[in-house]
């Protein structure tokens, strides 16, 4: 927001006059130019106060826009399509302006570029639903006209344009009323300027904004790979600004604009400017170098799968498309290039080809043998790609045939360490449907990028699955230490001693809690020292504890878990905490146990998400009191630490005093 910024200057025209063209700055002379009443040109600079008294030129034709970029003189584009340099125009303001475009053709949009130090002007016109692009080269004074073909979607109306330029092409991006962004490549050097040429547009991003937005749709190109779009993503939702990575087809970031916008968006010097409500909002945005990792990091799940235009598996060393996704009538330059390479490479990979064909037809048993054979082979350069393709193939077949579930195969493939969640999101989905906790545990251990919603779905299954069905599974027990042994040894130990941790609960002011707890001392001891879940479930829950998450994304999903499961999980976490505090290092035994921080974070998360529900449950009451005491004990530990620090400082002082032997002494020194 720029509310705390003040305008550096402000000028206004006389009443009755209407500004018909946005004011621009002539960077060469540091002057401003504006047009009012279509034909009257005004030029002034910072020192001028009254716009009425500044330079004025009345032109013979109506002006559409004045265009100015750094390093060249401004251009004046007339409504009839003619273009003049400002200097030439001012030399003879009343000169005759020719008509370039036909009757009823209206200029919709224009942009001015510098290409190889030569100015290039592009403007788009519309006539009866047909669009035309004109490209004016100033070094050769060539005007080229193109007809824009809208493709199959003939009825759509183009709402907004933006363009970026590289060495050979102007990439014209248009946002259509169907909510999709299309790209049209216009050559800078026309092949045959005389002929009327046609241009085909290709789909760049699907359904970026809702089709029936009333107002406030705009897009602007930020760099080669990023565009910013203003508009509402769904019909009912609030308007929002989103930045898309067009290279990887991902949403980079988005920001809601609840007060509405006006469909105007500019990008200048790494700042996005837009109108938001009644104020001008400036959002600094810098496009990072587009990378796959960066794109995946912000990938929103549960998005329209239609946006995944790119093939999913790309082996960057040996590019090879896998034949998924969009491959129909796409004209995109980028995809064409890749397909060419693909064609040339395909005959070189027979083993994987064989494997893929096996997947599609053979029995589970046979597939398993084939997969094992392939894995036993030395890792080929296209190993990653083949694994990815295999998994996708298997999953496709799983979806098609409900009875087909090659579990062993999938387990083996996961253990190759080359898969990740984003490569095969279906895998966990199917495992969730099949309630295959063993596979889910493996995924949780292996995949670094599981979205929070899926983690939470796993947690739900881990908590709800029956003990008897757990018995049959073969989950990895590595993270679970057999607590039952220690339970016997330490049953005698008082719980208060476990809690002590540097402070004594005798001082505890929560006397009524204590009383209540003391009512059922045996029960409590039992609860706190025996594991509330069976070891197999504990192993599964530990996998959840180990998984990475972001609090903000996890919290909403945690609210969906039933209250009794939350209590069970909390009990288990509390149990782990008690086990942790039993030894001095505050760690759990075992090979790969959950850490104290993970335990504490999850306790906090669960309570944050479900406190209102849990607090109403009578059976959770004691647990909550225990947790309350736990937190209290932690606070006391910290306050005790602070006290100890002070005491230590005093001791240090005493120690120093002992060392410095007073202010005066006589000592013996012998020098050797």
């Amino acid at each position: 927001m720029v509310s705390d910024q003040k305008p550096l200057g402000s000028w206004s025209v006389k009443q009755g006059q209407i500004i018909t063209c946005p004011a621009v700055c002539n960077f060469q002379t540091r002057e401003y130019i504006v047009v009012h009443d279509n034909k009257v040109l005004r030029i002034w600079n910072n020192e001028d106060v009254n716009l009425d008294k500044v330079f004025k030129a009345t032109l013979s034709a109506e002006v559409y826009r004045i265009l100015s970029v750094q390093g060249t003189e401004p251009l004046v584009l007339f409504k009839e399509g003619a273009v003049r340099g400002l200097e030439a125009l001012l030399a003879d303001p009343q000169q005759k302006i020719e008509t370039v475009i036909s009757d009823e053709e209206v200029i919709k949009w224009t942009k001015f570029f510098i290409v190889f130090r030569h100015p290039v002007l592009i403007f788009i016109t519309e006539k009866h639903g047909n669009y035309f692009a004109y490209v004016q080269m100033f070094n050769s004074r060539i005007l080229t006209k193109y007809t824009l073909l809208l493709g199959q979607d003939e009825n759509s109306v183009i709402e907004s344009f933006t363009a970026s330029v590289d060495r050979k092409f102007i990439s014209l991006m248009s946002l259509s009323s169907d909510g999709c962004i299309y790209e049209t490549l216009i050559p800078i050097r026309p092949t045959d300027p005389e002929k009327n040429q046609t241009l085909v547009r290709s789909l760049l991003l699907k359904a970026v904004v809702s089709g029936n937005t009333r107002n406030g749709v705009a897009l602007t190109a930020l760099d080669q790979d990023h565009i910013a779009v203003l508009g509402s993503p769904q019909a009912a939702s609030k308007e929002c600004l989103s930045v898309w990575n067009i290279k990887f087809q991902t949403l980079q970031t988005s920001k809601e604009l609840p007060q509405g916008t006006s469909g105007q968006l500019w990008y200048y010097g790494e700042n996005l400017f837009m109108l938001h409500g009644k104020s001008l909002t400036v959002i600094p945005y810098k496009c990072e170098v587009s990378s796959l990792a960066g794109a995946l990091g912000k990938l929103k799940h549960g998005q329209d799968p239609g946006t995944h235009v790119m093939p999913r598996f790309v082996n960057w060393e040996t590019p090879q498309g896998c034949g998924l996704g969009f491959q129909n009538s796409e004209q995109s330059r980028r995809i064409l290039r890749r397909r060419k390479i693909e064609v040339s490479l395909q005959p070189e990979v027979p083993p994987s080809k064989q494997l893929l064909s096996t997947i599609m037809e053979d029995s589970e048993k046979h597939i398993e043998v084939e997969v094992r054979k392939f894995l036993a082979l030395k890792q080929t350069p296209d190993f990653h790609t083949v694994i990815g393709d295999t998994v996708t193939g298997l999953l496709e077949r799983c979806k098609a045939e409900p009875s087909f579930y090659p579990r062993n195969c999938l387990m083996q493939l996961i253990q190759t360490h080359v898969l990740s969640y984003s490569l095969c999101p279906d895998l966990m989905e199917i495992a969730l449907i099949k309630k295959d906790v063993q596979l889910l545990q493996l995924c949780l251990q292996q995949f670094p990028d599981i979205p929070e919603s899926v983690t939470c779905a796993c947690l739900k299954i881990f908590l709800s699955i029956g003990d008897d069905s757990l018995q049959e599974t073969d989950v990895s027990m590595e993270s679970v230490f057999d607590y039952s042994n220690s339970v016997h040894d330490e049953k005698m130990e008082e719980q208060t001693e476990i809690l002590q941790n540097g402070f004594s609960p005798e001082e505890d002011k929560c006397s009524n809690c204590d009383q209540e707890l003391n009512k059922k001392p045996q029960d409590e001891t039992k609860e706190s020292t025996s594991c509330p879940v069976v070891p197999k479930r504990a192993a599964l829950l530990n996998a959840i504890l180990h998984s990475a998450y972001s609090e903000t994304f996890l919290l909403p999903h945690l609210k969906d878990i039933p209250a009794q499961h939350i209590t069970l999980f909390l009990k288990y976490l509390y149990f782990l905490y008690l086990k942790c505090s039993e030894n001095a290092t505050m760690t759990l035994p075992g090979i790969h146990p959950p850490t104290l921080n993970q335990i504490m974070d999850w306790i906090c998360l669960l309570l944050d998400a479900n406190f209102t529900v849990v607090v109403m449950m009578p059976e959770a009451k004691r647990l909550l009191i225990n947790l309350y005491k736990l937190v209290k004990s932690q606070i006391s530990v910290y306050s005790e630490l602070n006290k100890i620090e002070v005491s230590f400082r005093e001791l240090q002082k005493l120690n120093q005093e002992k060392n410095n032997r007073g202010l005066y002494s006589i000592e013996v020194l012998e020098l050797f």
Partner: protein
Amino acid sequence: MGEFKVHRVRFFNYVPSGIRCVAYNNQSNRLAVSRTDGTVEVYNLSANYFQEKFFPGHESRATEALCWAEGQRLFSAGLNGEIMEYDLQALNIKYAVDVFGGPIWSMAVSPSGSQLLVGCEDGSVKLFQITPDKIQFERNFDRQKSRILSLSWHPSGTHVAAGSIDYISVFDVKSGSAIHKMIVDRQHMGVSKRKCIVWGVAFLSDGTVISVDSAGKVQFWDSATGTLVKSHLIANADVQSIAVAEQEDSFVVGTAEGTVFHFQLVPVTSNSSEKQWVRTKPFQHHTHDVRTVAHSPTALISGGTDTHLVIRPLMEKVEVKNYDAALRKITFPHRRLISCSKKRQLLLFQFAHHLELWRLGSTVATGKNGDTLPLSKNADHLLHLKTKGPENIICSCISLCGSWIAYSTVSRFFLYRLNYEHDNISLKRVSKMPPFLRCALQILFSEDSTKLFVASNQGALHIVQLSGGSFKHLHAFQPQSGTVEAMCLLAVSSDGNWLAASGTSAGVHVYNVKQLKLHCTVPAYNFPVTAMAIAPNTNNLVIAHSDQQVFEYSIPDKQYTDWSRTVQKQGFHHLWLQRDTPITHISFHPKRPMHILLHDAYMFCIIDKSLPLPNDKTLLYNPFPPTNESDVVRRRTAHAFKISKIYKPLLFMDLLDERTLVAVERPLDDIIAQLPPPIKKKKFGT
């Protein structure tokens, strides 16, 4: 080597004043430092950070700003509302000009070095022209509504940024009008503070203004549009100071939490031409407020309430591993504050505004190395002599016999006669000092206490005859024609025949006191003299320089002694040369003519000229007594330097008699205990 009884004295209750400003001069590589008591010190960074010059403080003169102008002229301004220029040759204040704007909070020299700008309590910004011998008021800028706490010139000299309370103004120098007013956010961690004080501003050549404020922020402003560009919250407390490197590729800020942050202009990605300011390194060398920072080409310099001057080299800018590559923490003055009467075992301590006279205790016990002996008599505080007036004491001295005390402030010289009757002392001031004895930079009594030598700030050396309770002016050695260089160090031979005097720029003159004429001048050396003394009997002058070289010059022969030549040929041990505090006192053993005793702040050393010099392979410092090694091995490994590092920080050490030493220590903890408590930071918990 010898066994000594050491009087280990820790009751010298000296607390240096906090550092208020530092100003770095790139041309001369000198650093001016002002302290809260008004003292101004000049450090020569090329001469191993030696404190070359100092101007004594004044109670009413709180220096708030310090800067170097063209021609290495040093100016200060303070809360008494005056701008002062310092005479770096004669070591006095050239003049003081009242600016009539109330207390001055800030001052900045124009990039050309010819104009001086001050910011005052009443909100005025005043421009002064620096003329060859004075400064002249030129005009006022637009008056602001509150005090101007910081000022910075644009490198082109056309604009000035001024930090005030809650806002920063940008002035056009030509018109003197404020063209922008940039409001600083008062919010501090979401809480609105009462006021936001802009403690420092820096104007970069691209028009960026960097501000530091009491809300803990470092902010970047665009001075062309008057808008905030970027904000870094770096501290929970005030950010009090800022200094920018000359290349404008790095700057340093100091906070009230004692942290110094280094910001650097680094490329956004490697090989990219686009750069941004990044906070790169935090340094925590201070416990208290960092009131001031400076940025030399190779180091970050900071100082504050905890009285340390810290020079932190930027390792990437240091090419050779030498003095410049080490972190420096300068706490104690590089001059003596203590003198000693050997005959009566008295110590005279010099403070800013008083002197203390102490008598050492005694013991009858004996012991072995390291023993603390039981005292039969403790040390006594005999005298507390307070100065009159607001001026700080420059120097003081007690005669060897203990019957004379002399000290001097900027405007007055005091001489006292002491009488001892059993345990009582009576003090009598010698009145009617002659007018030429007004301001002494150094005072020295001859060994037999019959003569008083005074180095005045006009460059003259006065010899005064003392007898009974009266004195008589004998002679004045006038400085060589054309120079007004003040003499800072004096040494007299024990027979009273020779007087050596050294100035600030490395020249030692030796005078014949009997014939009252200049005897010779010791060949000039590049580094300033830090201490010197004349050995009894041989009349060899031993001179220590700030680069840790020690020379021995025979006064009768007018040449360096053979030993000194040998030392120079072989060179000192590398560890000796790497010490970072200067030798501040040299003395001799009355019975062992081959021994030279010297000390710096961290070690005490006896050089035995009869033993071979250590080379770089031998162990210079060996604290452990030799075990049952054969005599042969001992003799082979023995070398001339006998060093003890038991006493530190060591402010003074001297030989009282053949077997007794006195060592005055000032532990840093005792100083810290007397400072105001630092901002408390939580260590544990939420």
